[in-house]
C-alpha cells in the first residue's frame, strides 16, 4: 500500500467518523439545547441578579459615588474606600470582631439545638407532626420586622434567665471582647433558637435516611443509645451538620438585625461625602470575605475526611506503582546493556 492510498484511507475513515459524529451531534445538540432551555432561567437569573451586581458592587467599591437627581457622580479612588474602612472607620472593625466572635459562638449553639430537637422529633411520639410544625413556624414568621419588634420589646431572651446576672458573671472572668458576645447569646436566646427551624428540617431529613439495619446490627452487638449516637447517627449526619452550619452562618450574617448590615446600610445613605454607595460596597466586600472565611472554617472542620483504610489502600497502590516503574526502568536498562554487549 502506497503512502498516498494510506493517507486517502485515513481521510475517508475520518470523514466517515465525522459523518457519524454529525448525526450523533444533532441529537446531542438537540438534547443540549433542551437542557440549556431548562437551565436558561437560572443562567439569566444568575447573570442579572448575581454576576452583574457583584461586578457592579466591586467597581462601586473603587469609586466615591454620589447619587444626585441629575445622575450618579463617580470619582475613581482605587482602594481608597478599603483603606479608609480599615484604617479610619471607628465602627467597622470593632463591629466585625463582635460579629465574628458571636457567630462562632452562636452557630454551634443553633446547630446543636437543632440536632437535639430533630432527634426528638424523629422519635415515635404522639403529635409528632404537630411538634414539627411548631418548631418550623419561626421560619415562616421570623422576618426582619417581627424579629425587630421582638428585640425592641425585650422579648429576645427567656424571661426566666437572669441575663444581667449572667452577663455580670461572664464579665468577671472573660475578657471584654469575649464577654460581650457570650452575654449577647443569653440576652438573645429566644431569637437565636428561632434560627434553628431550617437546620431542624435538614437534620430530620438526614435522620430519616439513615439505614435502620445499622441500628439493629449495633443493638445486636450490644451498643446502647449513647454509642449509636456517636458511632452511627453523628457520622451519618456529618454532611448535614456542615450544611446546617453553612446555612446558619449565611442566615445570621445576612439578617436585618445584624449590626454590620445596619452599618453598611447607614454608610450607603450617609451624608458624609466620603461615604455613600462606594464606601458601603467596599464595606460589603470586606464583610463578605469574612463571612466566606467563617464558612471555610466550618467546612475545614466538618468536611468528611477519607476513610482510613481507603487512605492506606491508596498509599499501597501508589507504592506498588512506584515499584513497578522501578522494575521497568531496571529491565530497560538491562535490555540496553544486553544490546551493547551483543554489539561488542
Amino acid at each position: 500500500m502506497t503512502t498516498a492510498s494510506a493517507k486517502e484511507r485515513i481521510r475517508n475513515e475520518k470523514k466517515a467518523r465525522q459523518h457519524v459524529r454529525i448525526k450523533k451531534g444533532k441529537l446531542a445538540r438537540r438534547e443540549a439545547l433542551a437542557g440549556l432551555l431548562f437551565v436558561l432561567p437560572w443562567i439569566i437569573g444568575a447573570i442579572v441578579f448575581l454576576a452583574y451586581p457583584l461586578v457592579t458592587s466591586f467597581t462601586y467599591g473603587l469609586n466615591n459615588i454620589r447619587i444626585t437627581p441629575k445622575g450618579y457622580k463617580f470619582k475613581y479612588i482605587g482602594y481608597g474606600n478599603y483603606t479608609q474602612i480599615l484604617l479610619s472607620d471607628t465602627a467597622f472593625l470593632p463591629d466585625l470582631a463582635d460579629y465574628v466572635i458571636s457567630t462562632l459562638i452562636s452557630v454551634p449553639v443553633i446547630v446543636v439545638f437543632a440536632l437535639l430537637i430533630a432527634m426528638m422529633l424523629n422519635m415515635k411520639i404522639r403529635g409528632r407532626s404537630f411538634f414539627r410544625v411548631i418548631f418550623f413556624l419561626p421560619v415562616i414568621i421570623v422576618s426582619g420586622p417581627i424579629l425587630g419588634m421582638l428585640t425592641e420589646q425585650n422579648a429576645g431572651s427567656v424571661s426566666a434567665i437572669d441575663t444581667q446576672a449572667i452577663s455580670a458573671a461572664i464579665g468577671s472572668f472573660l475578657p471584654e471582647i469575649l464577654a460581650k458576645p457570650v452575654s449577647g447569646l443569653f440576652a438573645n436566646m429566644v431569637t437565636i433558637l428561632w434560627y434553628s427551624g431550617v437546620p431542624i428540617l435538614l437534620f430530620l431529613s438526614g435522620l430519616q435516611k439513615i439505614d435502620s439495619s445499622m441500628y439493629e446490627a449495633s443493638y445486636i452487638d450490644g451498643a446502647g443509645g449513647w454509642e449509636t449516637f456517636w458511632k452511627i447517627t453523628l457520622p451519618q449526619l456529618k454532611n448535614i451538620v456542615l450544611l446546617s452550619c453553612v446555612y446558619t452562618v449565611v442566615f445570621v450574617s445576612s439578617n436585618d438585625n445584624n449590626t454590620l448590615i445596619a452599618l453598611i446600610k447607614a454608610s450607603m445613605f450617609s451624608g458624609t461625602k466620603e461615604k455613600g454607595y462606594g464606601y458601603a460596597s467596599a464595606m460589603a466586600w470586606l464583610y463578605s470575605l469574612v463571612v466566606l472565611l467563617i464558612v471555610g472554617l466550618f467546612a475545614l472542620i466538618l468536611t468528611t475526611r477519607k476513610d482510613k483504610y481507603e487512605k492506606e489502600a491508596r498509599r499501597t497502590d501508589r507504592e506498588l506503582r512506584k515499584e513497578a516503574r522501578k522494575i521497568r526502568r531496571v529491565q530497560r536498562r538491562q535490555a540496553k546493556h544486553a544490546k551493547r554487549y551483543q554489539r561488542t
Partner: protein
Amino acid sequence: MKKILAMLLTLCLLLGCCGSLAEGTDGVVINGITYHPAADMTTEPITLTYFHFDQDETVQLLADRFMELYPNITVNVQYENVSTYNSTLLTLVSAGTCPDCIMFSDCDFALSNMLLADISEYWDADPETKNLADTLETAGVGTYMTNARYAVPVKFFPTGMYVDLNVLEALNIEAPSRNWTWADMIKLIKDATVLDSPDGMAYYGCGYYNRLDSYYGIAASQDIIGEFGFDGTDFDLGVWAVGEQEFSDLKLGGYIAPSTETQAMEDWTDDWEAWCGATGHVALFTEAFWTFQNTWNTDEYKQYNLDIVPYVVPAVSEEDASGVHHTIATIDFGGVSTSCEHPREAYELIKFMAFGVDGWKTRCEIYNDETITNKSGLPLKHDVMPCPITKDQDVWNAYIDMFCKGMDEAHVDCWREYFASCMQPIPFGWTSIAGYWNYCDEYFNSIGIHDLVDLGKAKAADYAEEATLKANLYHAQAMLDYFGEDGYDILTEEEVAKYEQMVEDNSI
C-alpha cells in the same frame, strides 16, 4: 315661564355645584378663606410630586386645596416614615424618579447628594418671605452660610419649657416671671426638688426630653447658631460645655426626674414604665412642643391634675431675657429638587405646604375640624401639629383660637405671650449647618460625652477644645465638599482658601 324657572334652577344648581368656590376681586374664596394664587404659574397641565414625613392626612388635604387653586397642577403626595425616609428618597433618586419637592431633616444628607436646587430667585421675589421669623434671614437659616437659598422651613416647633402650676402651688413656690432668666430657671428646678415630700412621693424640679445643654448655647449668646457655639464660621464648644456641666450637675444632684424604664423610676413610682410627665410631681419639663397637644391637652391626661403652661427658653443675661430673644427650635426643612422641571410651581407648592399664609389658613381650617382624624382616630390638631413661622397676624389669630380652644382666658394669655416670645427661632445645628450631622454621628456621639459627664467621670470642659477643632474640621470639609467644585460650585476663591485653611488648622 317654565323655561325661565328651569333656567333659574339650572343656574342655582350650577352655583350650588361650585359650592363655596368663588373668585373675589382680589383672590379666590374657598370655604370662607380668601386665597391669592400666584399669577405667573404655568397653565399647562403638570404633575408635581411632594415627598414628605409630615402628618400625612394634613398634607393630603393641603394638596387637594392646592389643586383646587391650580386645577392644571396635579399634586402627587408621597409619605415616608422618618426612619426609612432617607433610604427611600435616595432609592427614588437613584432610579431617576426624584420627587419635585422634598422634606429632609439632616442637611448633610440633602447637600452631599445635591438634592436641593437654588431657589433664591423665587424666595427673594416673594413678598411673603419678608414677613417670616427674622432669624431665617439674620441667621442664614436655609442658606448654609452661602449666598444662595436651598431650603425653606416646613415644620416649625418652638421649644417649650412647660411649667406645672399645680406643682408650684403644692410646694408653695411662686410662678416665675414670663421674662425669666436662665438663673431663675435653675433656681426653680432646685427649689421645686423636694425628695422627702409630705405626700410620700418625691418632687423633682425638672423632667427632661431635651437636655438643657442643647438650649444653653443660644440662651447664652444672641450671635450663636445651633447648639455648639457656631458663629457662622467657627464653633466654640466652650459655651456648650458650661450648659452640659450645669445639666449634669443637676442630674448628679438629684434635681432631675428619673427616666422611663429605669430602676430609679421604679423606686419613685413603683412603675418601671411610668413617665414623669404623668406623675404630677415635676415642676418643669423640657418636652417637645407637640407634647402639649398630643399628650397633656387630651382627655386621658385630665385625670393627672396637671396645669401645664408654656414658658419661653430663658436667656442667660437679663438684658436678652427682657425682650424677644433667640431660642432654639425644631425646624424640619424642605426644598425643590435639582431635577425638578417646574421649579416655579414646585416652589409655590412647598410654600403652600410649609410657610405660606394661604397654606396656613388652610391648615387652621383643617386643624379646627376635629372630625378629621389620623389613622388612629386622633384629631389632626393632636397629632404633631407645627406652628406658623409667618408673622401674619390673621394666621396667628386663627392659630391661637384653634390651639387654645376650651382654655380659660388666663391660659390663652399665657399661650399668646409664649407664641409671641418664640418668634426668633434658631434651628438645631444638624438641620442648618453643613457638616454638623456628620460631626455628631461620627465623632461627638461616638465618644459618649453625655454619659461620661452625667456619671461624673469627666468634666465637659475637658472635651471642649478637641470637640471644637473637630467641629470646625467637619464643617470646613463639608463646605468644600458640598459647595466647592465637586458640589454646587458656588464658593469664591477666597471662600475656598478660607475653608481649606480651616481644614488645615483644625486637623488633629
